[in-house]
Protein backbone atom coordinates (compact mmCIF):
# COMPACT_ATOMS: atom_id res chain seq x y z
CA UNK A 1 0.00 0.00 0.00
CA UNK A 2 1.06 3.57 -0.57
CA UNK A 3 1.98 5.66 2.44
CA UNK A 4 -0.01 8.81 3.00
CA UNK A 5 1.78 12.14 3.22
CA UNK A 6 0.04 14.97 5.01
CA UNK A 7 1.04 18.47 3.94
CA UNK A 8 0.31 21.72 5.78
CA UNK A 9 -2.56 23.67 4.26
CA UNK A 10 -1.27 26.52 2.10
CA UNK A 11 -4.43 28.59 2.49
CA UNK A 12 -6.09 31.20 0.30
CA UNK A 13 -3.35 33.83 0.58
CA UNK A 14 -3.25 36.19 -1.21
CA UNK A 15 0.27 36.59 0.18
CA UNK A 16 2.53 33.58 0.53
CA UNK A 17 5.99 34.08 1.99
CA UNK A 18 8.80 31.63 2.57
CA UNK A 19 6.77 28.55 1.75
CA UNK A 20 7.58 25.33 -0.03
CA UNK A 21 4.67 24.92 -2.39
CA UNK A 22 3.79 21.72 -4.15
CA UNK A 23 1.94 23.11 -7.15
CA UNK A 24 -0.61 20.28 -7.41
CA UNK A 25 -1.54 20.97 -3.79
CA UNK A 26 -1.94 24.67 -4.53
CA UNK A 27 -4.36 23.98 -7.36
CA UNK A 28 -6.25 21.31 -5.42
CA UNK A 29 -6.82 23.73 -2.57
CA UNK A 30 -7.95 26.38 -5.05
CA UNK A 31 -10.41 23.97 -6.63
CA UNK A 32 -11.77 23.08 -3.20
CA UNK A 33 -12.42 26.79 -2.68
CA UNK A 34 -14.24 26.90 -6.00
CA UNK A 35 -11.42 28.73 -7.79
CA UNK A 36 -10.51 27.39 -11.22
CA UNK A 37 -7.45 29.60 -11.51
CA UNK A 38 -4.86 30.92 -9.08
CA UNK A 39 -5.46 34.64 -9.30
CA UNK A 40 -4.13 37.78 -7.68
CA UNK A 41 -1.59 36.09 -5.43
CA UNK A 42 1.85 37.29 -4.39
CA UNK A 43 4.53 34.73 -3.70
CA UNK A 44 7.71 35.88 -1.99
CA UNK A 45 10.74 33.69 -1.30
CA UNK A 46 8.75 30.56 -2.12
CA UNK A 47 9.97 27.32 -3.59
CA UNK A 48 7.60 25.75 -6.10
CA UNK A 49 7.77 22.03 -6.80
CA UNK A 50 6.19 20.17 -9.70
CA UNK A 51 5.68 18.18 -11.71
CA UNK A 52 3.67 20.91 -13.33
CA UNK A 53 3.48 23.07 -16.38
CA UNK A 54 2.28 26.55 -15.57
CA UNK A 55 0.67 29.12 -17.82
CA UNK A 56 0.84 32.76 -16.74
CA UNK A 57 -2.26 34.75 -17.68
CA UNK A 58 -3.01 38.45 -17.45
CA UNK A 59 -0.26 40.44 -15.79
CA UNK A 60 2.10 38.04 -14.08
CA UNK A 61 5.44 39.36 -12.88
CA UNK A 62 8.56 37.37 -12.10
CA UNK A 63 11.10 39.34 -10.08
CA UNK A 64 14.52 37.75 -9.51
CA UNK A 65 13.25 34.19 -9.87
CA UNK A 66 15.07 30.94 -10.53
CA UNK A 67 13.03 29.15 -13.17
CA UNK A 68 14.70 25.81 -12.61
CA UNK A 69 17.37 23.58 -14.07
CA UNK A 70 17.18 24.06 -17.80
CA UNK A 71 20.14 21.79 -18.52
CA UNK A 72 21.83 24.54 -20.48
CA UNK A 73 18.93 25.38 -22.72
CA UNK A 74 15.98 27.42 -21.47
CA UNK A 75 13.85 25.87 -24.19
CA UNK A 76 13.87 22.62 -22.20
CA UNK A 77 11.46 24.33 -19.79
CA UNK A 78 9.10 25.61 -22.47
CA UNK A 79 6.19 24.06 -24.33
CA UNK A 80 4.28 25.66 -27.18
CA UNK A 81 0.52 25.19 -27.30
CA UNK A 82 -0.68 23.88 -30.63
CA UNK A 83 -4.24 25.07 -30.27
CA UNK A 84 -6.05 28.14 -29.03
CA UNK A 85 -6.67 26.52 -25.65
CA UNK A 86 -4.35 24.64 -23.32
CA UNK A 87 -5.29 21.53 -21.37
CA UNK A 88 -3.37 20.21 -18.39
CA UNK A 89 -1.43 23.36 -17.54
CA UNK A 90 -1.92 25.22 -14.26
CA UNK A 91 -3.02 28.80 -14.75
CA UNK A 92 -1.71 31.68 -12.67
CA UNK A 93 -3.50 34.96 -13.39
CA UNK A 94 -2.24 38.37 -12.30
CA UNK A 95 0.25 36.86 -9.86
CA UNK A 96 3.58 38.22 -8.66
CA UNK A 97 6.58 36.06 -7.89
CA UNK A 98 9.46 37.61 -5.94
CA UNK A 99 12.70 35.70 -5.40
CA UNK A 100 10.95 32.39 -6.01
CA UNK A 101 12.49 29.19 -7.29
CA UNK A 102 10.90 26.48 -9.38
CA UNK A 103 11.79 22.81 -9.49
CA UNK A 104 10.43 20.35 -12.04
CA UNK A 105 8.25 23.05 -13.54
CA UNK A 106 7.68 23.79 -17.20
CA UNK A 107 6.13 26.85 -18.77
CA UNK A 108 3.70 27.49 -21.57
CA UNK A 109 1.78 30.47 -22.83
CA UNK A 110 1.62 32.95 -25.63
CA UNK A 111 4.37 33.11 -28.26
CA UNK A 112 5.35 36.48 -26.79
CA UNK A 113 5.79 35.00 -23.31
CA UNK A 114 7.79 32.05 -24.61
CA UNK A 115 9.99 34.36 -26.67
CA UNK A 116 10.59 36.57 -23.65
CA UNK A 117 11.59 33.55 -21.59
CA UNK A 118 14.14 32.37 -24.12
CA UNK A 119 15.48 35.85 -24.80
CA UNK A 120 15.80 37.21 -21.31
CA UNK A 121 16.45 34.29 -19.01
CA UNK A 122 19.87 32.83 -18.27
CA UNK A 123 20.41 29.49 -19.92
CA UNK A 124 18.95 30.58 -23.22
CA UNK A 125 20.85 29.28 -26.23
CA UNK A 126 23.14 31.83 -27.84
Amino acid at each position, binding site marked *: *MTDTITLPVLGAGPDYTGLKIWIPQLILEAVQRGEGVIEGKTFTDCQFDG*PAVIIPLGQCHFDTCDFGLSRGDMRNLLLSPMGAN*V*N*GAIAFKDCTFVRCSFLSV*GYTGSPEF*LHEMTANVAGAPQ
Partner: protein
Amino acid sequence: MSRLPITRPVRVASDLTATLFEDVDLNLFTLHVTLHEGNIGLVQGRTFRGCRLLGPAILLLSAGNRFDDCNFGDPDGDMRNLILRPSGPRALGTIPMRDCLFEGCEFHNIGFTGPNELLDQLLAVGPAKS
Protein backbone atom coordinates in the same frame (compact mmCIF):
# COMPACT_ATOMS: atom_id res chain seq x y z
CA MET B 1 -17.02 -4.00 -26.24
CA SER B 2 -16.07 -0.50 -25.27
CA ARG B 3 -15.54 0.44 -21.64
CA LEU B 4 -16.38 4.06 -22.45
CA PRO B 5 -17.82 6.19 -21.08
CA ILE B 6 -16.74 5.30 -17.58
CA THR B 7 -19.83 5.70 -15.44
CA ARG B 8 -18.84 3.91 -12.26
CA PRO B 9 -18.46 5.86 -8.99
CA VAL B 10 -15.09 7.38 -8.15
CA ARG B 11 -12.64 4.76 -6.90
CA VAL B 12 -9.23 6.09 -5.96
CA ALA B 13 -6.28 3.79 -6.62
CA SER B 14 -4.85 2.63 -3.33
CA ASP B 15 -1.50 1.26 -4.44
CA LEU B 16 0.33 3.56 -6.82
CA THR B 17 3.27 1.20 -7.11
CA ALA B 18 1.16 -1.43 -8.85
CA THR B 19 1.86 -2.41 -12.44
CA LEU B 20 -1.81 -3.02 -13.29
CA PHE B 21 -4.50 -0.47 -12.57
CA GLU B 22 -8.02 -1.56 -13.34
CA ASP B 23 -11.25 0.38 -12.84
CA VAL B 24 -9.64 2.97 -10.59
CA ASP B 25 -8.97 6.71 -10.69
CA LEU B 26 -5.48 8.21 -10.46
CA ASN B 27 -3.97 11.65 -10.22
CA LEU B 28 -1.02 11.54 -12.59
CA PHE B 29 1.09 13.94 -10.54
CA THR B 30 0.61 11.80 -7.43
CA LEU B 31 1.58 8.73 -9.41
CA HIS B 32 4.68 10.50 -10.69
CA VAL B 33 5.73 11.70 -7.25
CA THR B 34 5.23 8.25 -5.77
CA LEU B 35 7.46 6.67 -8.38
CA HIS B 36 9.93 9.58 -8.21
CA GLU B 37 10.68 8.68 -4.60
CA GLY B 38 12.62 5.79 -6.03
CA ASN B 39 14.51 8.27 -8.24
CA ILE B 40 12.74 6.87 -11.25
CA GLY B 41 10.54 9.77 -12.24
CA LEU B 42 9.26 7.75 -15.12
CA VAL B 43 5.99 5.88 -15.32
CA GLN B 44 7.02 2.77 -17.19
CA GLY B 45 5.55 -0.60 -17.97
CA ARG B 46 2.16 0.02 -16.41
CA THR B 47 -1.21 -1.12 -17.66
CA PHE B 48 -4.24 1.08 -17.13
CA ARG B 49 -7.59 -0.51 -17.87
CA GLY B 50 -10.89 1.27 -17.39
CA CYS B 51 -9.18 4.08 -15.50
CA ARG B 52 -9.84 7.76 -15.16
CA LEU B 53 -6.47 9.56 -15.33
CA LEU B 54 -6.66 12.98 -13.76
CA GLY B 55 -4.64 16.16 -14.10
CA PRO B 56 -3.84 18.91 -14.22
CA ALA B 57 -0.78 17.49 -15.88
CA ILE B 58 1.09 17.34 -19.15
CA LEU B 59 1.86 13.78 -20.17
CA LEU B 60 5.14 13.24 -22.04
CA LEU B 61 4.66 10.39 -24.46
CA SER B 62 7.76 8.31 -24.95
CA ALA B 63 8.24 5.14 -26.92
CA GLY B 64 6.13 2.06 -26.47
CA ASN B 65 2.86 3.48 -25.22
CA ARG B 66 -0.34 1.98 -26.62
CA PHE B 67 -3.81 3.44 -26.47
CA ASP B 68 -6.85 1.31 -27.15
CA ASP B 69 -10.37 2.70 -26.97
CA CYS B 70 -9.41 5.81 -24.97
CA ASN B 71 -10.98 9.22 -24.52
CA PHE B 72 -8.17 11.78 -24.49
CA GLY B 73 -10.33 14.53 -23.05
CA ASP B 74 -12.50 17.32 -24.36
CA PRO B 75 -10.58 18.99 -27.19
CA ASP B 76 -13.27 21.65 -27.64
CA GLY B 77 -13.55 20.77 -31.29
CA ASP B 78 -9.85 20.91 -32.02
CA MET B 79 -7.50 18.12 -31.02
CA ARG B 80 -4.64 20.62 -31.02
CA ASN B 81 -6.03 22.06 -27.80
CA LEU B 82 -4.79 18.92 -26.05
CA ILE B 83 -1.28 19.06 -27.48
CA LEU B 84 1.84 21.09 -26.72
CA ARG B 85 5.08 20.87 -28.61
CA PRO B 86 8.29 20.93 -26.57
CA SER B 87 10.50 23.87 -27.46
CA GLY B 88 13.71 22.01 -26.61
CA PRO B 89 14.97 18.44 -26.59
CA ARG B 90 13.60 17.92 -23.06
CA ALA B 91 10.22 18.78 -21.60
CA LEU B 92 10.74 19.44 -17.91
CA GLY B 93 7.69 19.66 -15.67
CA THR B 94 5.88 16.98 -17.62
CA ILE B 95 5.13 13.42 -16.59
CA PRO B 96 7.04 10.96 -18.77
CA MET B 97 5.38 7.64 -19.57
CA ARG B 98 6.95 4.79 -21.49
CA ASP B 99 5.83 1.30 -22.46
CA CYS B 100 2.41 1.77 -20.89
CA LEU B 101 -0.83 0.28 -22.11
CA PHE B 102 -4.08 2.22 -21.82
CA GLU B 103 -7.31 0.33 -22.48
CA GLY B 104 -10.69 1.97 -22.14
CA CYS B 105 -9.33 4.95 -20.20
CA GLU B 106 -10.45 8.54 -19.89
CA PHE B 107 -8.07 11.49 -19.53
CA HIS B 108 -9.32 14.51 -17.63
CA ASN B 109 -7.52 17.89 -17.66
CA ILE B 110 -4.45 16.41 -19.27
CA GLY B 111 -2.36 17.72 -22.12
CA PHE B 112 0.03 15.69 -24.22
CA THR B 113 3.51 16.32 -25.49
CA GLY B 114 6.33 14.27 -26.96
CA PRO B 115 8.17 13.67 -30.21
CA ASN B 116 6.55 15.18 -33.28
CA GLU B 117 5.73 11.83 -34.86
CA LEU B 118 3.77 10.72 -31.78
CA LEU B 119 1.94 14.02 -31.57
CA ASP B 120 1.03 13.76 -35.23
CA GLN B 121 -0.51 10.34 -34.54
CA LEU B 122 -2.51 11.83 -31.70
CA LEU B 123 -3.69 14.68 -33.90
CA ALA B 124 -4.93 12.15 -36.41
CA VAL B 125 -7.37 10.52 -33.97
CA GLY B 126 -9.44 13.57 -33.17
CA PRO B 127 -11.25 16.48 -34.75
CA ALA B 128 -9.08 19.31 -35.99
CA LYS B 129 -10.01 22.69 -37.25
CA SER B 130 -8.36 23.54 -40.52
